């Protein structure tokens, strides 16, 4: 064999987050030569991906060994924004952080330090250990208006059916589509997503293609035309943000026409009469007017879905970003419940982690054991938003992001003085209202950023930077959902440490019980998986790195019949009534509407007709790209070369009216700001919408103030407001429904600049 294919060793591992950046799950093989990963291949034996991969995984070596990657801890030595950083040791970094955080704690209380993350991935455990060990209740997805990413859908599913579920592509079985228990869905409804571009929430987009090849038909709901919509038997081209009306209309049709599963509803559902009454408010004609979809198309698609069991629904983040995101998700989840598609083969299956092993402790007793008796009350009363939103206070541990940014600026109801920022580039990524978040972070006395490269956030506000390891450099494990699999390090790069290692070390300094219980990360891993007879080593050496449960509560189907879903072991669902709650008793407890309803977007042709005259296009942001994970990867040559410019996709008719040409740079603007984009003319776009991909800043440009890698020139979140959160506190971020217009660029016109704001940094 020639030298090119000679390696020192091959490490089998699981991809998750740093590197490809994604929600992970794929089995990969890392080929090592001279202590460097020189090649990455998909693992053909791994049932999650069967050797298949994505552009970001194929480019992993360019990411790992990028000349600008952070390789050791840094501290700021100039003013914020000057870009002057100096190498320090890990000891100095940890000592400084410990000291500064403790000073703030003594003066203002532990709640004055926030712990900010980006999208889910493998950070929840590491960051909650640190946040709660320090004693802060403020674990937050800073910038993500309305916490509008999956949490609203998870909340809705938990209220309705006691646990989340996912479209069944056989992912709970090692043999996948060939497992004899599995059945192919007759239809998959893809609601607001291009699954191949993003692999969302432990779901590989290609699984939909696998099902299509085997005979599954599609129903697509999307404002854009995509690969999937053009292959769909039914395509409902929806007006952005009106998904709630469509779901209510579909529920109404299903009830009116008796397309529901009467036996399942009778035996397992609570509140059918009330729901039926509410649905009458959404007759077909009205729903058609709101959504812009022809009546006959809604009818045909609903009939196809409801009368062809099994069928499943696979949904995307636009649901969360609708006004009242939790209630829109509630309405959609009732569709699979009413039609008898819940926890059946080929339907929407209840998704639980393999062997019920969670990667970190989050049940109440475990939390109390680790962080002290008072922890739950403290978190659930003190975190931002807990006093205003009972729903939020009772579901998951998030602080409310729209309230948090206000609190960081105005110090009410109590001051926030420092931010730990990890797995998130707030200013180049998810933050709506960029100026407000810049002001808020500048106002902090002390900011720590854990990341892999400089970005607008590190440049603008970091006081200490810690270098994070990619998945190829770290030890970890994953149960989201199945299989139980390990992440197995192949190499060390620089002095980078994994998020787990970094956070556990600091957590030990703040909380002696962590030091005692988890002197090394392996202690934690083996505690989590050891109860089931596994060890990290055993999984690595004897199981290829993964194992599928073959029976028990984490294996489908129809677990509500056998008592596997409830803690008390009784049949039914883990809800107060033990049934699927079409009328939510918990919503009533939280003082919000127990039944789903529709609310018009905050800005739209119907809600704000005057504003619409001035800004007649709906700006749909957040289109996924397989080349980029959100705000990452613009510095990776193999990826950037394939999609080099921040674009706006526009229907050619709109361009003709405005006298704008394909390829021209234009302003996309509204009352809040303007960003520069290159036009891509495309009939895939509806004439009323433009698609403006998010996460754009230019790593090749100057990083120092006021350039900040041109974030203020290109980041479309300058145009997106905060403060539209739902009545639950979760959902409603207006990333898909903000109004805008396009304007030709005049030669002397400057882009926007970051505002001059108070710098609250305290010197070292």
């Amino acid at each position: 064999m020639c030298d090119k294919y000679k390696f020192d060793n091959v490490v089998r591992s699981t991809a998750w987050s740093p590197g490809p950046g994604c929600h992970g799950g794929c089995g990969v093989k890392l080929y090592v030569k001279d202590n460097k990963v020189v090649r990455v291949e998909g693992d053909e034996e791994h049932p999650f991906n069967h050797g298949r991969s994505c552009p970001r995984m194929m480019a992993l070596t360019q990411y790992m060994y990028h000349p600008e990657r952070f390789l050791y801890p840094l501290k700021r030595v100039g003013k914020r924004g000057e870009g002057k950083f100096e190498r320090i040791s890990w000891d100095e970094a940890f000592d400084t952080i410990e000291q500064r955080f403790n000073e703030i704690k003594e003066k203002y209380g532990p709640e004055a330090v926030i712990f900010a993350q980006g999208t889910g991935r493998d950070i929840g455990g590491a960051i909650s250990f640190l946040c709660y060990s320090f004693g802060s209740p403020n674990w937050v997805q800073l910038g993500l208006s309305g916490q509008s990413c999956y949490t609203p859908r998870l909340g809705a599913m938990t209220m309705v059916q006691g646990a989340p579920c996912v479209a069944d592509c056989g992912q709970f079985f090692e043999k996948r589509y060939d497992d004899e228990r599995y059945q192919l869905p007759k239809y998959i409804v893809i609601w607001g997503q291009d699954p191949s571009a993003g692999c969302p929430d432990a779901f590989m987009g290609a699984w939909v293609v696998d099902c299509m090849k085997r005979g599954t038909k599609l129903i697509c709901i999307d404002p854009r035309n995509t690969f999937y919509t053009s292959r769909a038997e039914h395509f409902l081209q929806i007006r952005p943000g009106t998904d709630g009306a469509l779901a209510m209309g579909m529920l109404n049709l299903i009830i009116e026409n008796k397309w529901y599963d009467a036996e399942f509803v009778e035996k397992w559902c609570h509140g059918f009469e009330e729901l039926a009454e509410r649905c009458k408010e959404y007759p077909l004609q009205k729903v058609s007017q709101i959504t812009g979809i022809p009546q006959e198309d809604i009818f045909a698609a609903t009939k196809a879905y409801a009368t062809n069991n099994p069928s499943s629904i696979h949904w995307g983040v636009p649901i969360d970003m609708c006004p009242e995101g939790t209630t829109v998700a509630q309405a959609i989840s009732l569709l699979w419940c009413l039609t008898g598609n819940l926890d059946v083969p080929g339907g929407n299956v209840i998704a639980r982690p393999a062997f019920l092993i969670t990667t970190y402790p989050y049940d109440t007793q475990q939390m109390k054991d680790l962080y002290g008796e008072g922890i739950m009350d403290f978190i659930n009363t003190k975190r931002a938003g807990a006093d205003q939103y009972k729903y939020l206070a009772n579901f998951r541990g998030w602080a409310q992001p729209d309230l948090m940014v206000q609190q960081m600026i105005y110090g009410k109801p109590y001051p926030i003085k420092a931010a730990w920022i990890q797995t998130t580039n707030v200013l180049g990524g998810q933050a709506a209202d960029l100026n407000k978040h810049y002001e808020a972070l500048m106002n902090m006395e002390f900011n720590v950023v854990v990341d892999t490269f400089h970005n607008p956030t590190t440049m603008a506000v970091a006081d200490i930077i810690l270098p994070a390891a990619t998945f190829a450099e770290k030890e970890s494990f994953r149960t989201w959902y199945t299989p139980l699999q390990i992440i197995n390090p192949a190499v060390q790069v620089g002095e980078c440490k994994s998020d787990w290692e970094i956070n556990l070390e600091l957590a030990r300094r703040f909380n002696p019980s962590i030091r005692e219980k988890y002197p090394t990360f392996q202690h934690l891993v083996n505690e989590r998986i050891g109860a089931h007879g596994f060890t990290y080593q055993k999984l690595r050496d004897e199981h290829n790195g993964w194992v599928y449960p073959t029976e028990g509560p984490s294996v489908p189907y129809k677990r509500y019949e056998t008592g596997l879903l409830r803690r008390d072991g009784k049949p039914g669902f883990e809800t107060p009534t033990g049934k699927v709650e079409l009328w939510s008793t918990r919503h009533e407890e939280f003082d919000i509407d127990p039944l789903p309803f529709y609310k018009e977007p905050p800005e739209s042709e119907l809600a704000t007709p005057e504003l619409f005259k001035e800004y007649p296009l709906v700006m749909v942001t957040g289109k996924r790209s397989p080349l980029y994970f959100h705000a990452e990867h613009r510095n990776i040559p193999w990826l950037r070369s394939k999609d080099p410019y921040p674009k706006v996709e526009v229907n050619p008719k709109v361009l003709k009216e405005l006298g704008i040409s394909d390829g021209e740079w234009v302003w996309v603007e509204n009352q809040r700001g303007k960003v520069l984009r290159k036009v891509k003319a495309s009939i895939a776009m509806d004439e009323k919408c433009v698609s403006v991909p998010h996460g754009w800043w230019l790593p090749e440009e100057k990083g120092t103030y006021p350039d900040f890698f041109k974030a203020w020139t290109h980041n479309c979140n300058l145009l997106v407001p905060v403060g539209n959160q739902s009545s639950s506190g979760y959902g409603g971020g207006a990333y898909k429904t903000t109004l805008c217009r396009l304007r030709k660029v005049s030669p002397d016109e400057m882009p926007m600049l970051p505002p001059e704001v108070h710098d609250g940094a305290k010197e070292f």
Partner: protein
Amino acid sequence: MKKYGLLFDLEYCVGCKTCCVACQQENGFDGDSCGIFINEHIYKKNNGRVQVDYLPFPTQLCNLCEERISSGFDTRPSCVKHCPSACIEYGDAEELYEKAKKMVRPVIYLA
């Protein structure tokens, strides 16, 4: 002598460009060179629906991963292995023609 090549099922190419980066990794190309490109084609059909299609295009740089296969490292080119839609096949002309008959919208490229 047998002619080898690639077979694509256009029905299932999602346009993700995994094949392109797989090729660049395999051959050590920089961002500007690649053995395969993906072209996007968006058009209106007779029923008024918009079709979004992607067409993989092997360039002059494609050598069907000759070394990858001759060295015994793999039996398939890297693009074939890593395509998430599994819509690329590798083989000799006769094999590909037989496989193509079972595909929805097959295109054969022979090197």
